[in-house]
């Protein structure tokens, strides 16, 4: 099974102190460190495990620029055989539909049996996977928490339902799945692995190579425009209990009983 995983490079929320820039249009990016979007790591791990079982290959793709090669290499160190970078100056400020169009065009050029994305990106909106499926006219399942290969071209896909329930769906390949964290334990990518793929050539595709109409991507092609970016003011409602530890515990138990949290 040939599997494509769409990945994204995001500012690492646990290792940065995110601040807004002075214009209020974006976050301050000068001192940020980036990593692979957490959900995408699970998607790649799942792809690697599936490929191992079905004797297949894993390719990772991202839309971005040369800086984003770093995460493609990391995923290759993890075990992905191939990677590709979709990069075009004209696509820089595409909205989510624009990104999905680029990825769709990539898939049409390079067909795969299964396409995985993370459920969402840490700085994203959980839209690209679904849009790609629609554009490709492939079946789609989101919030996937387990995948089982039934026979050559069928999958049993478990999805998380709010409230802790699960549903199982039968789907035919090719399809698009958005992968939830916790589906597996992503392997560690050590420095050694990264060094070994440090000089691997990563093929780059621009919009014209993918046959994309530039009017559909970039700022001009965006149907959604970001108009503001801000940190919400802290609202009231949080109460900080004071006193000795015993007093705090007593008060907390009292409050929890009053609100019905404790019987």
């Amino acid at each position, binding site marked *: 099974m040939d599997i494509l995983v769409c990945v994204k490079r995001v500012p*690492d929320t*646990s*290792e*940065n*102190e995110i601040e807004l820039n002075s214009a209020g249009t974006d976050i301050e990016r000068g*001192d940020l*460190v980036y*990593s692979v979007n957490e959900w995408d790591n699970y998607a790649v791990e799942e792809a690697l495990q599936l490929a191992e079982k079905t004797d297949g290959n894993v390719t990772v793709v991202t839309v971005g620029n040369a800086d984003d090669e770093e995460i493609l290499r990391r995923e290759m160190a*993890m075990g992905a055989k191939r990677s590709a970078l979709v990069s075009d100056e004209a696509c820089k400020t595409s909205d989510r539909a624009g990104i999905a169009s680029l990825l769709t065009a990539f898939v049409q050029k390079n067909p795969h049996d299964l396409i995985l994305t993370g459920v969402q990106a840490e700085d994203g909106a959980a839209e690209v996977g679904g849009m790609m499926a629609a554009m490709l006219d492939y079946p789609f399942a989101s919030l996937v928490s387990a995948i089982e290969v039934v026979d050559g071209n069928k999958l049993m896909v478990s999805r998380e339902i709010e409230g802790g329930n699960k549903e199982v769906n039968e789907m035919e390949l090719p399809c698009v799945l958005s992968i939830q964290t916790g589906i597996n*334990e*992503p*392997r*560690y*990518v*050590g*420095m*050694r*692995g990264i*060094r*070994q793929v440090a000089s691997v050539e990563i093929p780059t595709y621009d919009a014209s190579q993918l046959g994309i109409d530039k009017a559909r991507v970039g700022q001009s092609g965006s149907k959604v425009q970001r108009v503001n970016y801000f940190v919400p003011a802290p609202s009231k409602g949080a109460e900080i209990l004071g006193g000795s530890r015993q007093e705090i515990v007593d008060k907390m138990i009292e409050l929890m009983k009053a609100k019905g949290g404790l019987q």
Partner: protein
Amino acid sequence: MVTTVPLPAAEWYGVGQILFIALHVVGLAFLSYIFYKRITPLLCAEKDPRFDRVLVRLGRVFQYWLAQWKHPRYRVAGTLHILIFGGFITLAVRSFDLVTFGLSDEVGFSGEIGHWYDMVTDWSASIVLLCMIVAAVRRIVFKPARYAVPERYGKAHTADAIFLLGLIAVLMLCDIVFAASNAAAHAQAGGVVEALATWSLPWALYKGMIALPMPVLLNTRLSICIVHELTFYFLLCYRPFGIQFHVITSLFNVYFAKLDRGTVKPVRWGVTDLDAVPYFGVKKFEDFTWKHMLDFYSCADCGRCSDNCPANAAGRPLSPRFLTIKARDYAFQHYPVFSQGAGTGAPLIGGIYSEDEVWSCTTCGACEEECPLMIEYIDKIVDLRRGMVDDGNVPRSLQKALNALESRGNPYGKMEKKKAEWTLEKEFRQSCKVKILDGKERASTLYFVDSITSYDDRIQAIGRATARVLDELGESFGILGAAEKDSGHEVRRFGEEMLFLQLRDQNVQAIRNSGAQRIVTSDPHAFNALRNDYRDVPPVEHVSQLLAREARSGSIKFNPVADGQAVFTYHDPCYLGRHNQVYDDPRFVLDAIPGLKRVEMERCRDRSFCCGGGGLMLFYEPKEEQRMGVRRVQMAADAGANVIVTACPFCMVNMEDGIKVAGLEGKMSVIDLTELVDRQIVRRIRTDKNAPTVEASTV
């Protein structure tokens, strides 16, 4: 010296010699074959250059093998072992005598030496026989806890132990009966009778045998020779199948033992280009070095390592003893003596070892310190971890910290530019300005702070105390600030060698740029890394060494301890004590404080009990019954102390947590040595008008 009586049945010797020669040939052939089979896996093992520093190694053999240096650490078992070992050494010649008796009379010492040698061996045999009885009684009746085999590791080893004790007892009995019957035969034949050592067992038996008829004596003597010969070869050939193997391998194991404390073996010996290594670490049995395999063979199953292992005590799934025993069982099973076999290349993790077992080790070194046979554990654990890291098999909680170390240079993922923020606390800044040695500012001493002291709210206080004390002592010092990365001490010991090398190279560069001529640190893990893992950096000291020097020269004066109720105890951090042998300096500083009452915990100095581990160990979520820190805090309480002094930021974290968990808040407290010095030091009154007069009131 065995002087034979002319035998009445001399003609027997014609047949007898053939019989004895046959026995020797068969025995030696078996022995050679068994050794050849046992050496086989060592030949396909990894390289391990241990052929240097011959004199040092011989010194080690003298101290730890011949003089049994570590044995008295366990009084009863140790004394028994020294007696048995001493007996074996003295009986070696006699034993050779007996096995060659059937061939020739001309072996052994003669004359005056022979006389004394016989006296000594009479006693040796008696003592060893008694020791066998005592040892068997210990095993069967008293059952010391450390010999027990937990269910998950299989059946008890008692039967094997008793069987071996029995075999040795038979040899000793042979010796005794031979000496007695030989002397009795000589006496009856009217020959020169070698005096037997008075009150020894041969002497007592001789008294009983003297009246027996000559043929009985001679036949006894001959039968004993045959029994001795058979038992001797059987035992020799049986040894390589179990715990008795150490009798043969211990000499080599001690000779080839690791000499450099505090270090970790390289990924592959003799390989400089790590990118060319196909994979890192130990994944299958054959990835161990030959010396590590020899370690497996040499384990005597005495259980001292696990008895001292804090992870074992806390109920973590790790017992160093079984780390070795399981590998030995694997070797015996896959490289069998009597059938064909070779390693299967099966992975060790998930096979004989579990992931949690390997991550459970804090690398405190208690097992290695205790092992009388100098078996190594830390290098093996690190090698196994390297293999797991290479396979991407790392717990999530550790992955986060490792990723942060890669991107930010510290396990917390904090910003580099905030590395020196601990120096900016308002009150501290007024009294002490800390230079940042970025090339523009210069100082002779570099204070290497490391991650936890830079970023942890509680531990920053240790950093400030260290800086204030250095300042008070008039040191010209500074820090690296944002250029300082984590020392990487645990990164290396958790198996992420390439990341460690990156951190080390960045630090070495920054240290060289600083122009400092020496390094001081308050973190024993950083101390060990800089001292034993780094190369080409200025000399490094732990702050306790500097403080002790100043206290010895009298340049520090201390105010008396104000709290009359305070009883202090010093907890030895593993990487200051065991790994770097700094035991006395912190104690000297403590004892220099007037009125300070200090007690020792039962487990102190080289038997110190690890607090729970430092560095990345703080990020690992172990499976355990009890925290090590809780146990340690209780040990301090048992010693009658109410203040624990330590000299390591991680000990501070673990023991403050331990106090809370043990419910000892208000009854027990922890203070870092530098914090205590900072509190008790008699401060100079500063004349500098710009600086405020510092705390003259506390004088």
